């Protein structure tokens, strides 16, 4: 039970170790170890000691219709993302095209998850760093109305997920072909008033976070996100990168590869050997021309220019996406008419299917091989946090020189703030990990 900012000095001369025993306000368990020798940063290891969770192995031998219930359990914060990537991949095998109102409903439930997940991070996990508190709950003592607004925004996202999915953590209705139940129009309309309040609150939130004091820090990023011809991406699109890469989702494994490092239970993913960034900042940078004008105006009013290159501005991108998700869900609710059936009929056939969707923290890749009985024979899952891990380590390397004159404890706290910019979901990344805590002296 090592605490935040616990540091230790090494016995060896001129060598100093900055360590964070347990990174606070992230989902899952991780630690950081930095070695500095003769004033220069030697090693930066983001250690994920969350135990390995073997989901890809659990999926083998299970029936395809159990997959949404199983993969949801990879992450309590973003279960819909796992369900969406899974059902899209399996629908590809069965030749199903989910369109119209069913597709809209999938976007709406995804909006709910973005709102819930982003609001949690903005208000309860990251804002305390900028305002100088240990937690959102502690922040509420001085900023009750702000925290209350954040919790109500989060609740609005949860309300969408609960209506469409039965509950917000591990929703139950998502299935291959559609949903087990779809709402009546009047049920969705019942959300409208709260979503309208939330939209105004989201505009306020963008203004609020844009006014924070940010360190000058602009590393050179490669952003990666989905891109769709007309939409801000959720479930569909090609994979594009700031490098000019533009590939179909099927080509992911030819360009991106996962590799293992000895100190972490999460695999690292690289694009042609180099780290890259996924998530809200990457999405806004690559897809801002797909945002509605109303959202773009709010972004323009902040005075920030695109592309956003400071990772600390992730909180702005996340707030912009809360606003977008509210605009989008309101738009889709207004045009909703109940589909004739909650799901399409399924004909099982053998094959391999691939899908990639935009989880709150970035692209989430799934590949499944299914046999003629509908049984999963092979599964591969690449979560966003294992993609960002290399990028986080590089940012820490770049950021560390400016805090080396501080005490170990202060330097460790500064590193934790950098890590939190990415909203890492460590539970997700451990298909996933256990770290060897080498505390060599």
């Amino acid at each position, binding site marked *: *039970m*090592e*605490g*935040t*900012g616990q540091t230790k000095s090494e016995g060896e001369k001129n060598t100093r170790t900055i360590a964070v025993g*347990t*990174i*606070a*306000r992230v989902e*899952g368990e991780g630690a950081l170890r930095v070695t500095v020798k003769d004033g220069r940063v030697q090693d930066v290891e983001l250690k994920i000691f969350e*135990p*390995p*969770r*073997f989901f*890809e*192995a659990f999926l083998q031998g*299970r029936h395809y219709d*159990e997959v949404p*219930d*199983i993969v949801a*359990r990879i*992450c*309590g*914060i973003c*279960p819909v993302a796992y369900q969406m990537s899974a059902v899209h991949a399996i629908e590809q095998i069965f030749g199903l095209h989910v369109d119209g109102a069913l597709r809209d409903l999938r976007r709406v439930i995804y909006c709910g998850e973005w709102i819930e997940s982003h609001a*949690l991070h903005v208000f309860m*996990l990251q804002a305390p760093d900028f305002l100088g508190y*240990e*937690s959102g*709950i*502690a922040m*509420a003592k001085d900023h009750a109305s702000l*925290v*209350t607004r954040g*919790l*109500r925004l*989060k*609740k609005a996202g*949860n309300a969408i997920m609960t209506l469409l*999915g039965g*509950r*917000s*953590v*591990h929703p*139950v*209705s998502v*299935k291959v072909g559609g*949903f*087990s*139940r779809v709402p009546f129009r009047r049920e969705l309309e019942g959300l409208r008033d709260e979503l309208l309040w939330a939209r105004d609150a989201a505009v306020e939130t963008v203004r609020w976070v844009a006014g924070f004091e940010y360190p000058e820090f602009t590393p050179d990023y490669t952003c990666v996100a989905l891109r769709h011809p007309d939409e801000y991406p959720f479930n569909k699109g090609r994979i594009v990168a700031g490098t000019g890469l533009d590939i179909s989702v099927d080509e992911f494994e030819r360009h991106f590869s996962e*590799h*293992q490092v*000895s100190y972490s239970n999460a*695999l690292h993913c690289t694009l042609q050997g180099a780290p890259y960034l996924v998530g809200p900042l990457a999405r806004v940078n690559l897809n801002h021309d797909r945002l509605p004008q109303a959202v773009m105006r709010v972004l323009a009013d902040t005075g920030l220019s695109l592309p956003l290159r400071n990772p600390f501005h992730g909180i702005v991108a996340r707030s912009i996406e809360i606003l977008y998700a509210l605009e989008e869900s309101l738009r889709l609710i207004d045009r909703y008419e109940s589909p004739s059936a*909650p799901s399409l009929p399924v004909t099982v056939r053998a094959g391999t299917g691939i899908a990639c969707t935009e989880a709150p923290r970035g692209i989430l890749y799934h590949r499944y091989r299914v046999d003629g009985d509908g049984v999963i024979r092979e599964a591969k899952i690449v979560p966003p946090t294992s993609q960002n891990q290399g990028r986080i380590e590089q940012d820490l390397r770049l950021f560390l020189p400016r805090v080396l004159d501080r005490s170990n404890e202060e330097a460790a706290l500064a590193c*934790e703030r950098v890590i939190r910019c990415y909203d890492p979901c460590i*539970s997700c990344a451990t*298909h996933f990990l*256990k770290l*060897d805590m080498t505390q060599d002296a």
Partner: protein
Amino acid sequence: MPKCDAEKNQPKLGVFKFTSCDGCQLSLLNLEDDLLALGQALDIAYFPEASSKMNPGPYDLALVEGAITTEEDAHRIRSVREQTKVLVTIGACATSGGIQALRNWADVDSFKQVVYPSPHYIHSLKTSTPISEHVHVDFELWGCPIDKGQLLRVITDLLAGVQPQVPVESVCLECKRRGNVCVMVAKGLACLGPVTRAGCGAICPSMGRDCYGCFGPTEGARKGPGFPPNTTSLANYFHSGLQLIPVDVLRRFRGINGYASSFKQESERWDKKT
């Protein structure tokens, strides 16, 4: 059962995570309307997912999420127990071993090879076990995830010095109260509702699908009063009435709470028939 000191101004709360998805801790944060009041009633001394403040024990109340899957964690839970007056497990992983217990019927070394290119870096136990196999647990809250209303009730009961109680009847009763049409009778779905404990509000049948047992078996399956649910009768009906082949019957019981004893026994009975 030991009591939290209700007279104490702010009893100390610790929230501890083991192998899990964070969903049950999130259920605590999802108490949006009551979270700030909870923060006043309790001293949230250790809750790394939500706070940088990580104060050492002793704790009046520990909420424990997740199963035990590593040697280190088997030691850590003993240390948590030593520092804690009332220990409550939250969720399927902590209470029955959860979905991670699927490894208990498999070869973990081969799992490592499926997931990791260099399996020798990975340290993990061959089993995923509930907290109660390692230390004494004062109260178990079932669910994957737990129901946040039940969580709030358990916390407030404990703060008031009252023995917490949650319903131990089956999901069928919640379904009837909600006025649902039975999905097993009407649609022929292999619903686990008759053997699964209530608490979720019969979410799955209300959403037009079969219950998949995420609140665990009804009372008696692990300990306490009552009898184990009649899983055998239900499993036989899945097979002879609903025409499920043995491996499908097995999969029904070997899921989110597959390592809870009555579900475990039932799946192993069908394992012999596949």
